[in-house]
């Protein structure tokens, strides 16, 4: 690093001495001490010709003054650098001036506390030079390039504040292919692969295969037999991977002509979606339509079953209504399909009316409810069309993406009825029936590139090329896929490669033990991964931790005796930086066949999903991670930097009085706990990480042996305990884990960095700063300063920002019910507009809910609109006063006698329309619980 910063610091010191001399003020000087040794007090002989100066000795324990100042100035420089591109010249000049003043103040400081104080003031001055954003804005419709820039800014903030944790590796690997397989491309395409099946071919027989018809099939393996291909009811990746062989979708991907990316191609659709209601011409719409293939275009089903009842469906033409049937099948709640529940409850790409239909079909399909779902098919001008309406506006690409799931592959209702349901009411499509007289081969009617040819339980699953597939003539030229069920590979990492080397399989990944031998083999290819594994950090201070996780924590609640023992080291950002620099990722990851990485997002996250541009290849990302890579081995490892940052952390913490040194003989030992998923991680991961950190920290040169760090190991009963018992409840120091999101929407995925659980979906894994604050570290975009949450919302949807912070458009208060003399009740809501001139509210209804009967009685839900309510508005504050008639209150209080022990539970829904900067949202509501008195 930081050689430039050091030089700058020295230069600045010279300038200061010069300027001080020239102005007649004597400079203060300090004697440098040896790095790593605790300093003795030093005195400086004063020049008798200059004015007397009060000498304050440098109190930094483990770092020389100029080094310390240089690092602090480096922090300041990085902060200013992050603002440069987003400010005009005038504003940037102000920032630079504040930076220069800050640097001077830091250089003039004589103690650790003074340096830190000068830095804090400089940071404030730099940030205050940039105005905070106030207003309502959305950047959702900006170009991919611009949104990528915003993502870079958000990522930089997260790295600078420690919210990304310490990344270790990306789960890419080395894979070997049998030379008889010609790959579609020799270079792995992120988000696509090598194009083995779609664009590849097989040029020779597999001798080991005993069935002559299968000798040119692509031979792969799975560790277990999933027993079904019903992807609609399975959350694992295995069924999804196998279902992909037989499935078709509206849109698919094929390799581009230059073999370095992929294109989105209509598969069951005949064209790309056309916007139906793009009223403002911005390319976004909620309703899209496109022409689809049917039997008229020669699209036919295929089934491999020899049962007579199933053969009737072989080569049957696809009807237009089969497209709708697929959606109905998935979304009907009584079908109990896990992915149906997920689709109905989806927060992004949600289909209008899907959730309502799902909720209305607990007892079976409902035509009435289906009529309100945003899925329609129709004939127009002799062509067959499919139309979808989303809840929110989508671009053409995202329409293709969201509607492109293979779960929506058409299916005739007669076939679903023929196959029937099992004893639990789950459809037997793609599955065995209860007594196993029918197999998935008999129950899979498909349109994909392959169809099921054979399924021998626990032995093999065989797929044959589908002659009816849309692109059967040009793509998928390999005649079939043979999947061997190979359980030995589950526990024995070498089993797969042994089978491959014996030429029983066409592909296998190289395990750790074989890497040295086969890494450079001509059959070997490297792939990128889909997830980055990291050690997440808990850098909260006590106050923040209690706010988040204390007795009344907003994220999770803990009894006082169960409070996490926060370690002073963890609260120091320089320590976490030191940990990051101390890990030799190249050694660690390479030994495991993974890819060393300091990135938060894996390579498969696309900043331009339509054109297959990976975010990690963009300039925005490179700028964000530069601070982790400068002056390292290229993978964020530098023992020298790690030790410097540890020295800095110890210097700061000791100056703050948070830690006390021991002696060489009896050093202060600081324990840091690492939480892992599996007991095996102790051997496979923890020992090496512990060694990296302790080697750096416990070196004599860091603290002269006065402090030692001891990295402890923790593991729960279940792999998920590290999430639920540690990371998500703040009871950890470092915790291993990774989560993956929608790889085509990386800017949506960084929601998990927010400390606001409404934004992160309860999936924050790193803790420290308040992401809706504007004081910790600047986020500057478009000439303004923002909080992380505000800019995140602006780029993903829209934001109402007040003083740079994300703000709810309307806030609510409720005044509890008061019983009147006539038995009626009066209550009130107070709605406060965040921006009275831009946000208007119209209250449309107040509804009283019978929760007593619903929750404690016969479960029947009743509600009644209250006719008596008034609304008064004053300066954006709306007071809604309502009255519950006596007879209604009496009825609802006891749940009409259906509760054994009536509690009088009721609730009120306040319905309102909200106009934000001219955009009207209708049918919004706010709900509260209350109680009536029970006579």
């Amino acid at each position, binding site marked *: 690093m930081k050689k430039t910063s050091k030089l700058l610091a020295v230069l600045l010191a010279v300038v200061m001495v010069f300027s001080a001399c020239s102005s007649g003020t004597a400079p203060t000087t300090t004697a440098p001490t040896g790095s790593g040794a605790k300093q003795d007090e030093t005195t400086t002989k004063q020049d008798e010709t200059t004015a007397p100066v009060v000498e304050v000795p440098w109190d930094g324990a483990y770092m020389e003054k100029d080094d310390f100042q240089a690092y602090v100035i480096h922090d300041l420089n990085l902060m200013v650098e992050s603002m440069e591109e987003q400010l005009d010249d005038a504003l940037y000049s102000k920032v630079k001036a504040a930076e220069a003043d800050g640097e001077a103040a830091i250089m003039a400081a004589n103690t650790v506390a003074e340096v830190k104080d000068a830095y804090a003031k400089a940071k404030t001055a730099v940030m205050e030079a940039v105005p905070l954003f106030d207003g309502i804005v959305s950047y959702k419709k900006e170009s991919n390039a611009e949104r990528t820039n915003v993502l870079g800014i958000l990522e930089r903030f997260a790295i600078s504040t420690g919210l990304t944790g310490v990344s270790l590796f990306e789960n890419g690997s080395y894979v070997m292919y049998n030379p008889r397989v010609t790959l579609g491309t020799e270079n792995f395409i992120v988000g696509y692969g090598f194009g083995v099946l779609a664009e590849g071919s097989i040029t020779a027989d597999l001798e080991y295969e005993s*069935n002559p018809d299968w000798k040119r099939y692509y031979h792969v393996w799975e560790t277990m037999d999933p027993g079904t291909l*019903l992807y609609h009811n399975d959350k694992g990746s295995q069924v999804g991977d196998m279902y992909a062989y037989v499935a078709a979708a509206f849109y698919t991907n094929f390799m581009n002509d230059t073999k370095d990316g992929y294109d989105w191609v209509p598969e069951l659709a005949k064209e790309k979606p056309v916007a139906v209601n793009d009223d403002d011409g911005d390319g976004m719409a909620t309703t899209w339509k496109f022409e689809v293939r049917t039997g008229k275009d020669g699209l036919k089903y295929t089934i491999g079953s020899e049962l007579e009842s199933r053969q009737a469906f072989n080569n049957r033409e696809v009807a237009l209504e089969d497209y709708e049937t697929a959606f109905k099948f998935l979304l009907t709640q009584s079908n109990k399909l896990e992915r149906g529940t997920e689709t109905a409850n989806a927060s992004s790409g949600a289909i209008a009316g899907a959730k309502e239909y799902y909720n209305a079909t607990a007892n079976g399909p409902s035509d009435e409810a289906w009529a309100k779902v945003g899925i329609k098919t129709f004939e127009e001008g002799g062509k067959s069309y499919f139309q979808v309406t989303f809840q929110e506006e989508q671009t053409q690409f995202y329409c293709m993406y969201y509607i492109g799931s293979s779960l929506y592959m058409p299916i005739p209702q007669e076939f679903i009825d023929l196959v029937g349901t099992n004893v*639990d*009411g789950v459809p037997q499509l793609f599955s065995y029936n209860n007594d*196993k007289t029918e197999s998935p081969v008999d129950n899979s009617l498909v349109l994909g590139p392959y169809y099921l040819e054979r399924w021998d339980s626990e032995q093999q699953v065989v797929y044959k090329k589908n002659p009816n597939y849309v692109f059967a003539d040009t793509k998928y030229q390999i005649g079939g896929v043979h999947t*061997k069920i190979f359980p*030995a590979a589950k526990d024995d990492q070498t089993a797969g490669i042994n089978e491959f080397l014996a030429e029983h399989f066409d592909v296998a990944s190289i395990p750790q033990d074989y890497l040295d031998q086969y890494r450079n083999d001509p059959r070997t290819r490297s792939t990128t991964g889909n997830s980055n594994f990291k050690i997440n950090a808990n850098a909260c201070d006590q106050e923040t931790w209690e706010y988040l996780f204390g007795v009344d924590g907003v994220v999770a609640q803990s009894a006082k005796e169960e409070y996490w023992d926060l370690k002073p080291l963890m609260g120091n950002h320089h320590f976490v930086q030191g940990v990051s620099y101390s890990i030799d990722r190249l050694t660690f990851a390479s030994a495991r066949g993974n890819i060393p990485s300091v990135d938060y997002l894996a390579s498969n996250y696309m900043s331009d999903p339509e054109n297959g541009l990976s975010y990690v290849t963009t300039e925005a990302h490179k700028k964000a991670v530069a601070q982790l890579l400068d002056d390292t081995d290229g993978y964020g490892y530098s023992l020298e930097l790690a030790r410097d940052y540890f020295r800095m952390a110890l210097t700061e913490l000791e100056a703050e009085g948070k830690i006390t040194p021991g002696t060489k003989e009896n050093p202060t030992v600081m324990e840091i706990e690492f939480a892992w998923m599996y007991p095996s991680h102790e051997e496979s991961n923890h020992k090496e990480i512990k060694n990296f950190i302790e080697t750096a920290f416990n070196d004599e040169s860091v603290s002269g042996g006065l402090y030692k760090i001891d990295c402890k190991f923790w593991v729960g009963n279940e792999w*998920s305990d590290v999430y639920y018992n540690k990371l998500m409840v703040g009871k950890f120091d470092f915790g291993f884990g990774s989560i993956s999101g929608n790889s085509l929407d990386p800017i949506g995925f960084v929601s998990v960095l927010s400390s606001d659980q409404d934004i992160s979906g*309860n999936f924050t894994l790193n803790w420290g700063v308040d992401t809706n604050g504007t004081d910790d570290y600047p986020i500057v975009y478009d000439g303004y300063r923002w909080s992380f949450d505000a800019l995140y919302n602006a780029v993903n949807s829209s934001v109402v920002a007040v003083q740079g912070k994300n703000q709810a458009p309307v806030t609510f208060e409720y005044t509890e019910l008061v019983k009147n003399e006539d038995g009626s009740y009066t209550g009130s809501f107070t709605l406060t507009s965040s921006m009275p001139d831009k946000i208007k509210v119209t209250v449309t209804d107040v509804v009283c809910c019978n929760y007593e009967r619903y929750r404690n009685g016969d479960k029947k839900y009743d509600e009644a609109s209250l006719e008596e309510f008034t609304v008064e508005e004053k300066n954006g504050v709306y007071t809604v006063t309502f009255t519950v008639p006596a007879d209604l209150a009496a009825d609802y209080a006891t749940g009409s006698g259906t509760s054994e022990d009536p509690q009088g539970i009721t609730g009120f829904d306040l319905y309102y329309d909200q106009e934000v900067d001219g955009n009207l949202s209708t049918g919004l509501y706010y709900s509260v619980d209350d109680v009536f008195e029970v006579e």
Partner: protein
Amino acid sequence: MATSCRLPDFTKTKGFYFIMGKYVLKRIGLAFVTTFIILSLTFILVKLLPFERPIGADSQQIAYFDKQTNLGYVYRFENNQDEKYGEYLYRSPMDKGRSFYYYKVPVLEQYVRWLTNIVTKWEWGYSKSIMPNVSASVIIMERLPYSLRLNVISVIFSVPLGILLGIWAALKKNTMTDHTISTMVMVFISIPSFVLISFVLRLFCYELGWLPSTWPPATAPTKMKIMGYIIPVFCLSFGSICGYCRFVRAELCEVLESDYLLLARTKGLTRRQAIVRHALKNSMVPIFPSILSEFIGILGGSMILESLYGIPGIGKLFITSLTTKDYDILFVDMAIFTTLGLLFGVLTDLSYGFIDPRIRMGAKK
């Protein structure tokens, strides 16, 4: 002591069949009670394991818990039970300010439901993940023949070989032959089965390429299917051969040094006659019942082999059902192992009476 003399035929004793019948019924009754206790304990302990939760967004959580509700592991309420009912797992917001609350179905309630289905409908449940939809008993009945076939072949192969080696070692006691056999037995009996299997796979499948490296599929040619038996039978038999060899050698050596055999020789029998007529017969008394218990021992030992070699038997099924938490399968599998184990225990005990007439089952002192 001359045990080679003819003993009285106890089957002709008054009330023999009544006593034996009573004894057998008592043992079967006890076996039934033991099976019930073992299955009940297994059910309760397994169900007390922590409830696994998914990692993902709210929509994924709702989907997961709804599925668990459909499978009968979780109850979904529309109000908070305040821990009055089961273990709280998750809350998902509905519309209009309402929520679904998910609670784990109490273990005892699951137990009563499971037991009721077995007792009243002989319904052992359905697979949840190994082969979704399919009846647990159908799956077991499909897998059982693979395991039984392998084990029967293994017993047929290992018992004579083990006994012959044992006899040979005993007859050649303290010679180089005996030392070689005994040393080999000690070495091979000490090798864990998974090491042996891995070694055999590497040598005969990957290095020499003589044998299939996994269990041949149903579509494989007959020759390959037959060859597919070699490794599993060899691996299953290996321990048994060593065990029997050691056992037979020890028994026979003891008998060969006994007074009655010396007496037989002094009465003029040749060494061969003495061994064949007296020594072998008597030394087999404790060995034959152990063949029955060996059978169930091998069945248990085949779990590892079945997993490593990909044999679709009940041993592998047991491990898979445990790791995938397909509990209905696990319990049926457990019931099979328990029942077979206890059944062979009863048969073993009964066999003593038939093999050695001095042993009388169920007789009072």
